C-alpha cells in the first residue's frame, strides 16, 4: 500500500533543494567570522555540484537558485556591514569543501532513503500482485535453496498440502512427506533428472493431506545453477488440478458410455440382421427344396413341413421380442392385472417345459396353499418361462433345474436355479441390459437376440418388483425376481397416467 508522500515528486525535490540551499547559506553565515567575504563565491559552485550530485537536476538547480538569492539579498548586506580579516584562505577552501561534502552526503542519504522506500513499496506491490495472480490461477509458489535445504512456501502451497505454517518443516522433507506413496518414486526421479539437466522439472503427482484427502497437483520449476553448473536453487509453482481432472474424467466416462451404447446398438443390429436372416434363409431353402421335389413328382416329407413351421415360429418369436422391447422402451406396454395363483402358474409352466424337454428334470416344490397375488398372469408366465428357458439353453443336458417360491408379508420371490458353469461377476450386471449378449458375437453365438432378460426386467419392474442373479463360477446361477403384494403408489399413478 502507498503510504505518505512521493519523495520523487518534483515539487518535493524543489522544496528539498531550497532547504539544502538555506542550510548552506546559514552555515556560511555562522562560519563567516573565519571565512570572510572574498572567497565566498566559491561556495556557489560547491552547493551547485553537491546538489546536482545528490538530488538530481531539479533539486540542484533549485538549490543553486535559492542560494544565490539568499546570498545576494540577505547575506551580502550583512557581510558588507562586517569587517573580517583576510587571513586563513586555506581554511576557507577546506571549509567550503567540507560544506559541499556534508551537503552532498546529506542529499545522498535522503535520496537513498527515498529510493529504498520506493523500492520496498514496489516490491510489496509486486508481491501483492503475484499473490493475487497466484490465488486466481490456483497456483502455489515455492522456492528451494538446495545447498542449505531451505524451502519457502506461500500460503497457497500450505493450503494445497493441508498443513499449517507451524507444522511446515521448511525443508524438502515437507514436500516429500505430502506425496502420495504411489507417486513418490517417480517425482523424485524427475527431480533428480532435472538436477542432471536431462528433463525439465514438470510433472503431475498426487498429494495426501494429513486429513486423508487426495489432491492432484501439477508442478513445474526453474532450476538455477551457480557458475560451476551446480544446482543452487529451484523456483517453482504448484497448481491444484484435482477439480479439472475430475471434470475431465467425468466427461471422458460420459463419452465412453455414449460410445459403448452406440457400439452396442451397432452390434445388436449386426446380430439382429444375422438372427433374422438365418430363419429366413432356412425357410426359403426348405421351400425351394419342396418345390423342386414336387416338380419332380417326389413325395414331400411331413418332417420338411415341420422344419418350416419351426423356422417360421422362430422368426415370429424374434419379431415379437423386438416389438416387446420397442413397447417397453416407449412405455406402451399395459398390464392386465388379476388375482392369480402364482404356484399354479409356475406348475403350469414347468409342465410345459417337461413336455418340450422330456430328458431334462424340472423340480418345483409346490407349496400346499395357493399363493395369490394381483399380477398380469400372461406377463409373469412369460418371465418364469424365459428364466427356465435360459437355464435349459445354457446348462449341460444332465443337470436339473430347480424352481422355488417363497413369500413374506410384503412380497413373493420366485427363483430358477441351475447347475451351469456360472456367470462371471462383470457380466452379471450387463445381463439385464438391452442389446446385450456375449462380448464377441462373432465368436460365441447363441440362438436369439439376447433380449429375453431385458424384457423380463421390464415386465417385473412394471409390477413394481425387481430381478437379479446370483452366480458362482463352476457351481451355477440362480435367477430370481420379486413382486410386492402391494404395488408401489408411484407405479400405479405412473401407469394410470400413461
Amino acid at each position, binding site marked *: 500500500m502507498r503510504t505518505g508522500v512521493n519523495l520523487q515528486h518534483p515539487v518535493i525535490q524543489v522544496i528539498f533543494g531550497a532547504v539544502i540551499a538555506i542550510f548552506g547559506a546559514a552555515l556560511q553565515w555562522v562560519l563567516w567570522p573565519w571565512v570572510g567575504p572574498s572567497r565566498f563565491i566559491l561556495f556557489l559552485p560547491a552547493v551547485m555540484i553537491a546538489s546536482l550530485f545528490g538530488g538530481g537536476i531539479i533539486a540542484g538547480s533549485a538549490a543553486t537558485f535559492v542560494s544565490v538569492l539568499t546570498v545576494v539579498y540577505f547575506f551580502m548586506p550583512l557581510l558588507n556591514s562586517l569587517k573580517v580579516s583576510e587571513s586563513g584562505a586555506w581554511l576557507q577552501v577546506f571549509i567550503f569543501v567540507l560544506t559541499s561534502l556534508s551537503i552532498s552526503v546529506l542529499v545522498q542519504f535522503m535520496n537513498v532513503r527515498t529510493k529504498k522506500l520506493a523500492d520496498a513499496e514496489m516490491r510489496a506491490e509486486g508481491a501483492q500482485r503475484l499473490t493475487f495472480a497466484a490465488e486466481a490461477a490456483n497456483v502455489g509458489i515455492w522456492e528451494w535453496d538446495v545447498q542449505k535445504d531451505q524451502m519457502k512456501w506461500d500460503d497457497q502451497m500450505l493450503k494445497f498440502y493441508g498443513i499449517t505454517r507451524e507444522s511446515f518443516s521448511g525443508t524438502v522433507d515437507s514436500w516429500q512427506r505430502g506425496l502420495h506413496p504411489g507417486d513418490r518414486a517417480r517425482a523424485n526421479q524427475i527431480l533428480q533428472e532435472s538436477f542432471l539437466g536431462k528433463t525439465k522439472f514438470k510433472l503431475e503427482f498426487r498429494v495426501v493431506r494429513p486429513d486423508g484427502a487426495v489432491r492432484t497437483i501439477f508442478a513445474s520449476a526453474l532450476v538455477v545453477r551457480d557458475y560451476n553448473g551446480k544446482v543452487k536453487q529451484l523456483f517453482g509453482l504448484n497448481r491444484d488440478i484435482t477439480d479439472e481432472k475430475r471434470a475431465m474424467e467425468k466427461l471422458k466416462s460420459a463419452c465412453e458410455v455414449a460410445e459403448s451404447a452406440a457400439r452396442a446398438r451397432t452390434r445388436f443390429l449386426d446380430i439382429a440382421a444375422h438372427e433374422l436372416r438365418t430363419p429366413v434363409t432356412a425357410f426359403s431353402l426348405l421351400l425351394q*427344396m419342396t418345390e423342386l421335389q414336387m416338380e419332380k413328382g417326389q413325395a414331400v416329407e411331413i418332417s420338411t413341413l415341420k422344419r418350416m413351421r419351426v423356422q417360421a415360429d422362430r422368426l415370429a418369436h424374434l419379431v415379437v421380442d423386438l416389438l416387446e422391447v420397442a413397447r417397453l422402451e416407449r412405455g406402451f406396454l399395459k398390464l392386465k392385472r388379476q388375482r392369480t395363483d402364482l404356484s399354479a402358474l409356475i406348475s403350469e409352466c414347468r409342465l410345459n417345459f417337461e413336455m418340450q424337454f422330456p430328458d431334462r428334470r424340472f423340480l418345483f416344490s409346490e407349496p400346499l396353499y395357493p399363493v395369490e397375488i394381483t399380477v398380469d398372469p400372461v406377463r409373469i408366465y412369460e418371465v418364469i418361462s424365459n428364466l427356465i428357458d435360459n437355464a435349459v439353453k445354457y446348462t449341460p443336458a444332465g443337470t436339473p433345474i430347480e424352481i422355488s417360491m417363497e413369500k413374506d408379508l410384503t412380497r413373493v420371490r420366485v427363483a430358477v436355479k441351475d447347475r451351469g458353469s456360472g456367470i462371471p461377476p462383470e457380466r452379471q450386471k450387463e445381463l439385464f441390459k438391452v442389446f446385450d449378449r456375449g462380448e464377441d458375437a462373432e465368436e460365441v*453365438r447363441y440362438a436369439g437376440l439376447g433380449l429375453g432378460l431385458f424384457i423380463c426386467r421390464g415386465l417385473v419392474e412394471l409390477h413394481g418388483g425387481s430381478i437379479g442373479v446370483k452366480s458362482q463360477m463352476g457351481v451355477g446361477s440362480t435367477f430370481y425376481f420379486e413382486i410386492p403384494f402391494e404395488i408401489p403408489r408411484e407405479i400405479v399413478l405412473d401407469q394410470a397416467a400413461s
Partner: protein
Amino acid sequence: MTLGSASKLVLVIEDEEDIRYTLQVFLESEGYVVQTAENGLSALEWLKLGRIPNCILLDMKMPVMTGWQFAREFVDRYDHLAPILIMTAAADAEQRAKEIGASGWIGKPFVLQELLDKIKRVERVEPE
C-alpha cells in the same frame, strides 16, 4: 446321377441344421456327394481323414470356429486345394471373400439354382 468315385464331393460347413439338411438333399439330388459339418473345427477334423472336396460351402458366423478361422486354417494346411464359396449375410461379403482367398460368395438368403451355378463355376475338376 452318378455315385461312387466319379461323384464330386461338396463339404458344407454351416451351423444351422435346416440349411445343412436342405443343401445336402438338394446337392445330392444334383449328383454330388455331400459331407456336412456344423462348424469349422469339425470340418477340419473330417478333412484329416484325407479326402479333399471339390468345393467347400462355408458359413461365416458359427460357434466354436468361425468361417474366417476355418478359411485361415484350411489355406495354411491345404493351400488352395479346394475352392471355397462363402455363404454370408455380411454387407462386405465380396471384400471378405477376397481377404480369405475364397473363390466366390453368395448372399443369404439365396436361390438354390444360383448356388448350383456358382458351385459348377468354381468346383475343382479332377484330371481325367
